[in-house]
């Protein structure tokens, strides 16, 4: 493995008394593609939300691109600028046009000139195949189109790492592939990606490693071929049976 992008060491996360993440150790190398799966409530979202401090962890350490994630606001801001995130429910800004959604953060957080930010935004909107929607509002787009805008919005910050939290779960079946295609092409470009998803076809195709979580713990991790054909843990086995029988 080359350089380290994310290093999580002995990390624990509590919601009040509830122990949501238990002793997580995870290293993600630059350019690596990780798929996280597991049953509902197992802590997948919580884990990736800890990486950009949408959730605060209580002990252990998280180091992103060499910066320690602690209470120092400038560390948090630095990490957030370098880590993009795509949400299950898109979370586009409804009062801004598609183009404004894409240029807002580069202009404000990266101090990019407007013209340059708009150029970059159009480039990424083309990349996700919807440049013609740039002047529309998010409410005028289909779910699949909105999610592709959300990916373009994240890319406009030129992040080192992209986090995906079930990006296709809220989509109608016929729109899932248009989003997955974009993600596959990002993977091909060498983007460091951490994806929570139940799209096992995607996991097989692009993942370097698959991580299985249950009850706040990392139960098993391995290369997709080993993981799918010869899961070692009973819980993994059971989960895969459920998922693949659908």
């Amino acid at each position: 493995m080359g350089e380290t992008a994310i290093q999580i060491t002995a990390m624990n996360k509590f919601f009040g008394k509830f122990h949501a993440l238990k002793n997580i150790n995870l290293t993600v190398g630059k350019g690596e593609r990780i798929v996280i799966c597991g049953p509902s409530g197992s802590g997948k979202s919580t884990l990736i939300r800890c990486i950009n401090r949408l959730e605060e962890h209580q002990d252990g350490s998280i180091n992103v691109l060499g910066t320690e994630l602690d209470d120092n606001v400038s560390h948090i801001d630095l990490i957030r600028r370098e880590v993009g995130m795509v949400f299950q429910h898109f979370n586009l800004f409804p009062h801004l046009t598609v183009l404004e959604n894409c240029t807002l953060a580069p202009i404000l957080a990266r101090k990019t000139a407007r013209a340059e930010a708009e150029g970059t935004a159009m480039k990424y909107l083309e990349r996700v195949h919807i440049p013609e929607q740039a002047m529309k509002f998010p409410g005028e787009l289909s779910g699949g189109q909105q999610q592709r805008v959300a990916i373009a919005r994240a890319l406009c910050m030129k992040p080192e790492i992209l986090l995906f939290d079930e990006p296709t779960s809220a989509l109608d079946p016929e729109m899932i592939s248009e989003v997955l295609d974009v993600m596959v092409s990002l993977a091909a470009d060498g983007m460091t990606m951490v994806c929570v998803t139940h799209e096992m076809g995607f996991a097989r195709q692009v993942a370097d490693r698959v991580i299985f979580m249950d009850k706040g713990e990392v139960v098993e991790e391995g290369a997709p071929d080993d993981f799918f054909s010869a899961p070692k843990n009973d819980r993994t086995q059971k989960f895969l049976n459920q998922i693949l029988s659908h």
Partner: protein
Amino acid sequence: MSVTTLPHDPTRKQAHRKRRLSRPIDMAFSALGIGLAALVLWRIFNWAVLNAVWISPDGTSKVCRGISGACWAVIDVRWRLILFGLFPFEEQWRSSLACLVIVIVAILSCLPRFWRAPRLAGLWIAGFVAFYVLMAGGIFGLTSVAPEKWGGLTLTVFIYAAGMLIGMPTAIGLALLRRSTMPVIAKITGLFIDGIRSLPLITILFTAALIMPFVLPPWLLGDKIWRVVIGFSLFFAAYEAENIRSGIQALPAGQEEAAKALGLTYWQRTTRIVLPQAFRNALPPTINQFVISFKETSLIVIIGFFDVMASGKAAFGTGDWSFAWVEVYVFVALIYFVFVFSLSRYGAYLERRLRVGQH
């Protein structure tokens, strides 16, 4: 017919209509109602227009003796008192100009092309400076007029505009502080808002005008009119803060999270993502608050200010015109109506405009 029939069942509707129209007694009642309404309107028209006296050539109430219609002559003779209060007679052009300045600035700031913080700020600062110079005088060869002499519609418009202008940013500040992640700040702000809301406006105005002089050191006191404006804007802000907070609360958590994930700072998130959407959500109750506040300006009479309502009372208060109080109140009501109704219609326009692109 069975009890389970739906209300929009066509047969039932038809039956209902048939029943309502076919019975002679119902038709008689309808005719009676329409007839009565027509009669009332006719009598109002007679009183207000046909039999009314419009002007008084000699400036006294003699022309109205023995007439059966409205005596609008009282407005003809006393309109300056109603609009300008006790402002010195020869200087009243200044008061009317000052009032006009504020109204024009208010109208301009309703136009979308002025919706930029620097433009709005420049507009209102220029507006208030012009207002103050015109009203107070003392420079540019204008004789100086003490604020106690300001009055009438000009005073109402001034107190209202200044109150809203200070009140709105205060409301935003209070709403944000009440949502602070620091529990102490959120608690204290909550107590402050609830405290102000629990007091009648009269008490607040009274405190600002009459009690503050005992409490504050003289150099901090300022003129009574400013203390009243501050009291008025605090009262407005306490209510409006809650409107804005409800607008913020209505936003999905994902909005703030997406903004955080993009690396935007607290202020960037607040000014670009949270507040613009919160305003949209809070628009109907906000317009409501603006309308209520306009009417509440009439309470400043309690601490010795002659707003348009009070100077209206003065207009028929002197013996000569005391019979013409209805006419004066109708005139004052009309003034209020023009302002408040325009405000409501503007609110409706804003709602339509801001919905564009949001489905």
